[in-house]
């Protein structure tokens, strides 16, 4: 490789650029054959740091292949895999990588392989892969699931994982860890580089990507100046106490957009983005064509158009979701508005970084509160950003569902010998402590469905041949598995198309099947910024036409609800503590002062030394509100444990609501909270026992099982557009969960569902630390006459869990009696 010229120097010199120190560090490291992780915020030359490192080391000069008689030099074989978390980023990455290749006449080709890649392009790639292939973790696993994978990838020298922070903390990242373990076994000298935004735990991020050690860490440009400010409601007295859409702030948002040439308006959900887009158009009909909508359920064409128009500076504003969080730098963006809580410091900084890209410009994000309490969160977010309290992300540990899926993939990818694959899998960080017992279970699961040979008659997915190599014997099962690879679980989605006679109307995007199922033909709904009317549904496609109706439903997509990060929650408590001392610093706190006074008069304020609790009797029943400020996950765990412990003392059914600030327990029968809420109830002792017991009494594990069942192949999402007959073999994961619990309680996937609830839904470690912390706090219990500003959002929360120690018959009897009473009062 010593013959290759210094492409980096050539290209940078030609443009009059001076490389950053971190770019040179990466180039030197890769020259020495080292792997590593580059921490760099958006933009700022991180792509070229890694790309020129690859070119300098692996690209041979043009003269070497000029002997070819063809006019176009033959490109070098596959050398670099570029992994990107979002297929939307792939095309932009390709353009960025191709620019220097053309300028420097390097005989490298760049290709894409994602879920969007056409079948003709795939066919071309199966004959010869490009020198650099840009792909996603799912598509990489699909390539590894081909019988000729090892030959096809034999010339691979380097893997680049872009936006590693987006993958590190989830199962997609684990899937990638497993793929990397396989590539490393084939080529121990493989160079792996990750590019990650700044995280609170950089050492962990590096260890997971390069578990064999020897990786180096390179720090990119430190992030530039960041300004966080808030749009204040005109009168706090008329600003709502709960809610998440935030349209009260419409006039102020319109005014802000008016005064700035190009803005991004971030919302937290797709439904919210639809509502805001429509509201902005109604407020300013003259902005039609100047503002646009961007979220992940819109068709690819629409999103491409919006991104292009934004880059060309044709748009005044784009209302978007996290779909515009990553990648692509949009130069013309001047302002970023965040509607509602940003939930985390890292996310807020990333969104802020979307503005002011030109050198010397400050990045600015303006927070738009959707209800009163978000003002204090805005003030707290400023503190946390100023102190750079960035959240850590951690890799999942040993998820067996991903392992089971991987075993079938590898059986397809030329087959596997168990002992060899065991060593290889343990090379992935998440499985470094995988025991032989776990391994044997996973093998038995893909072979027989479980450990006991008789447990699952007629079932076989993977089987060893006479040489001890495990394969998938059934071509039908192989095809189904290839369609199911991946760890992103979503509800069955249905395509939306305009109705036209003879079919073939324009594609609009997709919505969840459950939403369409609730609509009748003729009903109106809002999608892609248009009022639509449902015409008919057939073959997993909903046909629609434009509507002139006044009333319209808005689709809800069941995306995950992100919890407020610990970092941000603690900053909120600090602001409340200061307020309790009479300190109201900054415009947000001064605006909030009247509301804080109400909270203080009717109840009290949470502080760093007290735990605020409120008891209330209403028409609904007996309420307890508790405010530990530990994020919704921990609150859910805490509420489950509390409900469980109380239900052991008396027969009772609780309905549980949580938000990022606190929790509510509601019962239809009396609970004497001042008496019941003793320090013992909040003790960290026997925590794990009680959490596990509460899991069995509640419904949380079932919800987690849904994802696990899909990934492990228990539930098949179905072929897109498949006729109804194949759907007879689809069953809900809830049904599976019940059947497993009753007939195979020892199944490890059930155990995993339980473990994942502990770790991800409830965050047991953080729960334990929280209990220890609140045990040192002084309990401050108030008996309320009416709900307080802090309690109100919990009171109206509709997403609820339940927990019961009552006999089912008693619960049914009470509900049936209540119904009879209302029926009688209705008659009189």
């Amino acid at each position, binding site marked *: 490789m010593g013959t290759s010229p210094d492409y980096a120097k050539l290209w940078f010199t030609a443009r009059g650029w001076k490389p950053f120190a971190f770019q040179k560090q990466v180039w030197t490291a890769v020259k020495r054959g080292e792997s590593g992780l580059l921490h760099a915020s958006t933009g700022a030359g991180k792509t070229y740091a890694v790309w020129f490192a690859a070119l300098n080391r692996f690209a041979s000069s043009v003269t070497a292949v000029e002997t070819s008689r063809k006019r176009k030099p033959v490109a070098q074989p596959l050398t670099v895999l570029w992994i990107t978390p979002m297929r939307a980023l792939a095309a932009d990455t390709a353009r960025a990588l191709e620019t220097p290749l053309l300028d420097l006449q390097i005989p490298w080709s760049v290709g894409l392989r994602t879920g969007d890649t056409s079948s003709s392009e795939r066919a071309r790639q199966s004959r010869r892969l490009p020198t650099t292939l840009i792909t996603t973790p799912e598509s990489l696993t699909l390539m590894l699931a081909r019988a000729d994978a090892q030959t096809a990838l034999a010339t691979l020298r380097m893997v680049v994982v872009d936006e590693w922070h987006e993958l590190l903390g989830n199962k997609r990242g684990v899937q990638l860890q497993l793929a990397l373990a396989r590539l490393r076994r084939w080529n121990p000298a493989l160079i792996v580089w990750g590019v990650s935004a700044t995280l609170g735990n950089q050492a962990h991020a590096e260890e997971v990507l390069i578990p064999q050690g020897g990786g180096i860490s390179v720090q990119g440009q430190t992030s530039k100046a960041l300004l966080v400010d808030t749009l204040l409601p005109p009168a706090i007295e008329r600003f709502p106490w709960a809610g998440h859409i935030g349209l009260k702030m419409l006039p102020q948002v319109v005014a802000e957009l008016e005064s700035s040439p190009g803005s991004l308006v971030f919302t937290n959900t797709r439904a919210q983005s639809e509502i805001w887009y429509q509201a902005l158009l109604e407020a300013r009909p003259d902005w039609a064509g100047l503002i646009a909508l961007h979220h992940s359920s819109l068709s690819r064409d629409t999103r491409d158009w919006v991104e292009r128009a934004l880059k060309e500076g044709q748009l005044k504003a784009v209302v978007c979701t996290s779909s515009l969080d990553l990648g692509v730098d949009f130069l013309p963006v001047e302002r970023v508005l965040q509607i509602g809580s940003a939930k985390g410091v890292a996310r807020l900084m990333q969104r802020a970084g979307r503005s002011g890209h030109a050198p010397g410009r400050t990045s600015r994000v303006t927070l738009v509160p959707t209800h009163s309490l978000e003002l204090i969160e805005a003030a707290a977010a400023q503190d946390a950003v100023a102190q750079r309290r960035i959240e850590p992300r951690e890799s999942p540990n040993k998820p067996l569902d991903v392992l089971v899926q991987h075993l079938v993939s590898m059986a397809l990818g030329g087959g596997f010998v168990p002992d060899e694959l065991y060593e290889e899998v343990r090379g992935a960080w998440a499985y470094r402590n995988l025991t032989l017992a776990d391994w044997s279970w996973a093998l038995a699961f893909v072979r027989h469905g479980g450990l006991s040979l008789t447990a699952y*008659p*007629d079932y076989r997915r993977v089987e060893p041949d006479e040489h001890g190599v495990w394969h998938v014997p059934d071509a039908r099962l192989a095809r189904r598995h290839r369609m199911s690879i991946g760890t992103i679980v979503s509800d069955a989605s249905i395509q939306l198309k305009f109705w036209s006679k003879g079919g073939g109307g324009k594609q609009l995007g997709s919505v969840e099947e459950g939403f369409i199922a609730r609509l009748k033909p003729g009903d109106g709904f809002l999608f892609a910024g248009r009022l639509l009317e449902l015409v008919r549904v057939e073959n997993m496609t909903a046909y629609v036409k434009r509507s002139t109706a006044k009333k319209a439903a808005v689709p809800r997509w069941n995306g995950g609800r992100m919890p407020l990060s610990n970092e941000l929650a603690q900053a909120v408590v600090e602001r409340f503590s200061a307020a309790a001392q009479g300190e109201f610093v900054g415009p947000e706190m001064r605006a909030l002062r009247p509301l804080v006074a109400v909270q203080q008069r009717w109840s009290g304020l949470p502080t760093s030394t007290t735990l605020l609790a409120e008891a209330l009797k209403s028409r609904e029943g007996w309420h307890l509100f508790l405010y530990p400020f530990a994020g919704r996950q921990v609150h859910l765990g805490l509420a489950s444990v509390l409900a469980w412990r109380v239900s052991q003392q008396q027969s009772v059914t609780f309905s549980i609501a949580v938000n990022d600030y606190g929790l509510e327990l509601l019962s*239809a*029968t009396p609970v004497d909270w001042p008496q019941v809420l003793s320090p013992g109830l909040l003790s960290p002792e026997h925590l794990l026992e009680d959490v596990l017991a509460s899991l069995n009494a509640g419904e949380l594990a079932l919800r987690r099982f849904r994802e696990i069942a899909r990934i492990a192949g228990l539930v098949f999402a179905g072929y897109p557009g498949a006729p109804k007959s194949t759907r007879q073999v689809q069953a809900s994961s809830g049904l599976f969960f019940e059947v497993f619990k009753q*007939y195979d309680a020892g199944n490890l996937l059930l155990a995993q569902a339980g473990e994942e609830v502990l770790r991800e839904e409830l965050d047991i470690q953080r729960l334990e630390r929280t209990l220890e912390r609140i045990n040192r706090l002084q309990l401050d219990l108030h008996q309320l006459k009416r709900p307080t500003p802090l309690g109100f959002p919990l009171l109206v929360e509709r997403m609820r869990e339940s927990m019961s120690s009552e006999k*089912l018959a008693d619960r049914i009897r009470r509900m049936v009696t209540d119904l009879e009473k209302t029926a009688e009062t209705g008659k009189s």
Partner: protein
Amino acid sequence: MSTPYPVRLAGEDMWLLPEKALYWPAQQALLIADVHFGKAAAYRSLGQPVPHGTTASNIAVLDGLLAALPCRQLIFLGDFLHGPGSHAAATLGALAEWRARHADLPMTLIRGNHDKRAGDPPASLNIRVVPEPLLLGPFALQHEPDPHPDRHVLAGHVHPVYRLRGRGRQSLRLACFRLGEGVSLLPAFGAFTGGYQVERDDSCRIFVIGDNEIWPVS
């Protein structure tokens, strides 16, 4: 067997059973909808692991009812077998053994949509298979709940469940009977079947099943 709940339906006394079945004392007939025998086996044959035990559990409940009630005929309101993959040796073996224990009892299956795909049960099971409707007294026995011009329809297919709501934002989702003016629905009998939520209106009576009891929802 748990306590039956007697109701009047189309002029007849009928018993709603918490085992998710309907008994007609005058005819000594036991009516069962949507057993879906072999559903788990059908999944396994397609590479989806489901533990066994559901067939045995269905048979045990049936045996309990047949032991407790005088029964001159057993009628399945469709969806006896789940799919083509349900003709598995273990499933059919268990059914044959069960049939042998009740060799003298006449059994009838009204063909449902799943039976059409699965194929009729093997002749050795000695189950008479008929298309819907099967007319008996004031009733038209069917799988699908389509109205009949002059009979009261007893049907399955829907797998009805009802969501009971109460104070304190509580709710329970329970299998139910839905007795209407012209069409009445039986709950799905099978241990491995899901449910479809039905609503209540003035023209129908809902009876939910929970804790081995029948509960009228007025």
